[in-house]
């Protein structure tokens, strides 16, 4: 039913109900109401890429903050709405833990090495210096505890990037 393509855009089809528009000509205030019900960063980004009117309307509202994704044991990623983001095989191989936000995943490998990857584009990992033992322990602890839920005294690990990973030689602090 939803795939019945009856293009009313510029077609002026039979009904004169909504002023002859079509979804691309949805009045801005109505699209705003729809946007309020699309809290996912990904949905909002994709909505902006549908057509010019939607892009212009949607750009008037700031994007919601990207929320962390959940990495599943089978290597998949889901957003907090439970929608699959995309399978990310990089997360499966010899990776001990992973923190992912937006298009960036911070990986701790079995050999205690660390790297940053874009889990979606499959870009090659950017190796990082080995973490100091204490930091590594903190990351481990935070993961352990988040699973048991028994202890909320989490260690916070933060990675700061000076630029996108796509740029040559980004500055990274952990």
């Amino acid at each position, binding site marked *: 039913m939803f795939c019945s393509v009856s293009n*009313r855009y510029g077609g002026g089809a039979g009904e004169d109900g909504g002023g002859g528009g079509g979804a691309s000509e949805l*009045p801005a205030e109505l699209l705003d109401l*729809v946007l309020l*019900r699309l809290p996912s960063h*990904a949905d909002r980004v*994709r909505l902006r890429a549908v057509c010019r009117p939607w892009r212009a309307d949607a750009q008037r509202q700031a994007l919601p903050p990207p929320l962390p994704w959940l990495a599943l044991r089978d290597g998949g990623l889901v957003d907090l709405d439970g929608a699959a983001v*995309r399978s990310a095989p990089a997360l499966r191989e010899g990776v001990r833990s992973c923190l992912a936000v937006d298009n960036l995943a911070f990986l701790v490998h079995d050999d205690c090495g660390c790297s940053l990857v874009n889990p979606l584009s499959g870009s090659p990992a950017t190796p990082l210096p080995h973490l100091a033992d204490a930091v590594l322990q903190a990351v481990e602890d935070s993961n352990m505890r988040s699973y048991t839920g028994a202890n909320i005294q989490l260690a916070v690990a933060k990675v700061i990037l000076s630029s996108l990973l796509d740029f040559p030689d980004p500055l990274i602090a952990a």
Partner: protein
Amino acid sequence: MAAATDDAGDSNEMIRVVSSDGEHFEMPEAAANLSLVLRHMIEDDCADAAGIPLAVVAAKPLAKIVDYCTKHAAKSSGLTIEEAEELKRFDAEFIEVDTDMLYDLLVAADFMGVEGLSKLAVQRTADLIKGKTPEQNRETFGIVNDFTPEEEEEICKENEWAFQITKPPSRLC
């Protein structure tokens, strides 16, 4: 329409409305009061036998809106849990419409100020958009891609990851 008038609320008064394409509809006053615009017209004594003209609402969406208001007006107060659930089921079935009708309902409910229906249609639209690629959304809503290939490429680069739910087809998004 006739069936919709059976379970009227406490008011016996019937309100007539006329669609943009000249069709006449009737609904109980309690149902018409769910529309802000109609309520104001009734209060201003503009509701006469000729019917209130709704210049931008065609017969098809208006018939649906009359159904919606009549159902909700009849069940508006002192709902039991079963009745509330029944109303919820009614809403869910009511809004299972094609995207042309959904668009008409969105615009008409907003124009007529039928708050409950407006929310229902907005939520339905958001649910249809959720989790879809731009191309899938264009198909769903019958929208023409009016970006130039250069613009499209630029848009895709902004948030590359968001467009990779499925393998991109020939064009980037």
